[in-house]
């Protein structure tokens, strides 16, 4: 086990997502990945993995206003498989 | 009548059926309409096929068969379906109400089949293939030729996928279950 630290996090309104994938490369630490599942509109959507910095890039490039961005007062550590 | 959400390929499917019917020397008239702006709204199409020149307008009050890719705009279409008419839906995505008493219902897992072929966007063609097989409206070779003619130049890269989708759909149909061409030669609508 090792720990990955998230300095921030996001919420994703996945029902609004249209699966364009613009947020994926826009995320500097690359902590967003598209889902296997599809939302009600039939689109895959991004899922967050540990390591978000709260930079807000995803929000700026999302055409469907899916993101809100939060900065933790204290970084949060996630235990992950090695 | 065919119904779906914009971008689901409903118009292409309808056009392919119409073109295939013409290839088989039937008369066909087909009209696509969009219920909203161009993006995300509903998209319906009406197809009238017959043995003689068609004097009916391209919008009908009653239909003999309804194909549904999605339930969102299903209701008005269902209301036009004649008693005993054919309702063929894209299962399992379709969640609309079906009246199995009044209509002959066929469920075709079009999206899963298409996804299995590598492109969910070809689902409508799977449904079209299944419909053709089930009703005997047109034969598979006509469908494939019709699809080739219908593709705009900027969609040529989808030729093979589409062909596979039509074939898989035709395969998934229930031949003879709802014949479009009754013995007396009357026209379905």
């Amino acid at each position, binding site marked *: 086990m090792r720990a*990955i630290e*998230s300095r*921030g*996090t*996001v*919420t*994703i*309104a*996945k029902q*609004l997502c*249209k*699966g*364009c*994938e*613009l947020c*994926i*490369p*826009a995320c500097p630490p*690359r*902590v967003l*990945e598209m889902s296997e599942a599809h939302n009600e509109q039939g*689109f895959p959507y991004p*899922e*967050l*993995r*540990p*390591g*978000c910095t*709260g*930079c*807000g*890039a*995803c929000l*700026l*490039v*999302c*055409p*469907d*206003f*899916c*993101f*809100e*961005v*939060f*900065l*933790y*007062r*204290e970084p*949060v550590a*996630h235990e*992950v*498989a090695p | 009548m065919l119904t779906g959400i914009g971008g689901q390929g409903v118009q292409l499917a309808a056009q392919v059926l119409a073109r295939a019917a013409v290839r088989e020397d039937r008369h066909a008239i087909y009209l696509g309409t969009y219920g*909203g*702006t*161009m*993006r*995300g*709204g509903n998209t319906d199409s009406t197809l009238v096929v017959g043995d003689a020149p068609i004097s009916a307008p391209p919008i009908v009050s009653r239909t003999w068969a309804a194909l549904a890719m999605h339930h969102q705009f299903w209701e008005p279409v269902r209301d036009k379906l004649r008693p005993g008419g054919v309702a063929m839906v894209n299962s399992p995505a379709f969640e609309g109400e079906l009246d199995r008493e009044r209509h002959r219902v066929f469920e075709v897992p079009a999206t899963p089949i298409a996804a299995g072929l590598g492109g969910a966007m070809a689902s409508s063609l799977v449904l079209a293939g299944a419909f053709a097989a089930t009703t005997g409206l047109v034969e598979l070779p006509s469908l494939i030729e019709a699809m080739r003619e219908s593709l705009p*130049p*900027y969609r040529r890269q989808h030729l093979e996928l589409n062909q596979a989708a039509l074939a898989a759909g035709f395969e998934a149909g229930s031949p003879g279950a709802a014949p479009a061409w009754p013995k007396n030669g009357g026209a379905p609508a």
Partner: protein
Amino acid sequence: MSRLPVLDTDRPPQASAVKIARDKPDLLLTERHDLCPGCGEPLAMRVLLEAIEELDASRMAIGVVGIGCYTAFSPTMDVDSIQALHGRAPSVATGAKRMRPESLVFTLQGDGDMVNEGLQEVIHTAARGESVTCVLLNNGVFGETGGHMTATTVLGQRTKNSLDGRDAAYHGHPILIGDLLAQLGGTAYAARGAVDDAAGVARAKRMLRRAFQTQLRGEGFSFVEILTMCPTGWFIPTPDGPGYLDEVMGTVHVTGELKAGGKLTTTAELIARRGGREAPTA
């Protein structure tokens, strides 16, 4: 990385955190819209509305909206607005501003709207030095009607009627509207941004702020062009949008400030300056 756990993003975090950015700008009445996946216009819309908020100008703004895909925001943007016809927004803005000189009047137009149908409107408005801000969302296509070529489509760009790329001999040359406008006597500020990445989005907002400030100081006409992705009209997959924008449109309609503080910078100068890299302006 894919073995990392998926975190809950359905609700705000439990741990102590501050929200630093909201999903949609407050000046948008709903986050829903029916623009295509991967469209760049909502991004421009976001920064436009945020710039107004940040300047505390919400209660003095009048937006005049042209006809194109962005028209979808006409009902949902929470600022007073006038829906104009295709191409006619700059004149409508002129009339509104003259009767309400204390307000912040801007247009929201596409390249089809501004550089095709209504090209002379924006040029005359700029020459007159009208104290309005014209905002151009430039994707090089008529998105709304199906992706046809416009007067800004760059050579080589794919559109519905140039599937193999715009060819100068057959289709003519693109118009660099920013350069035309910048050199007019009545223009006080002109800039060109793009929303192909987060930095670009942020920079576009700075340009919009400067343009609005120019207007509020009564210095003359101001103009901001924002390059936006239109994967639908370019007939490409959505993830390819930003790269296509950057490589195809962005090398001709180069981003940067074209007129600011009385100084004129041509696109040719921007290209020279950037030497193949991102322009350092703004």
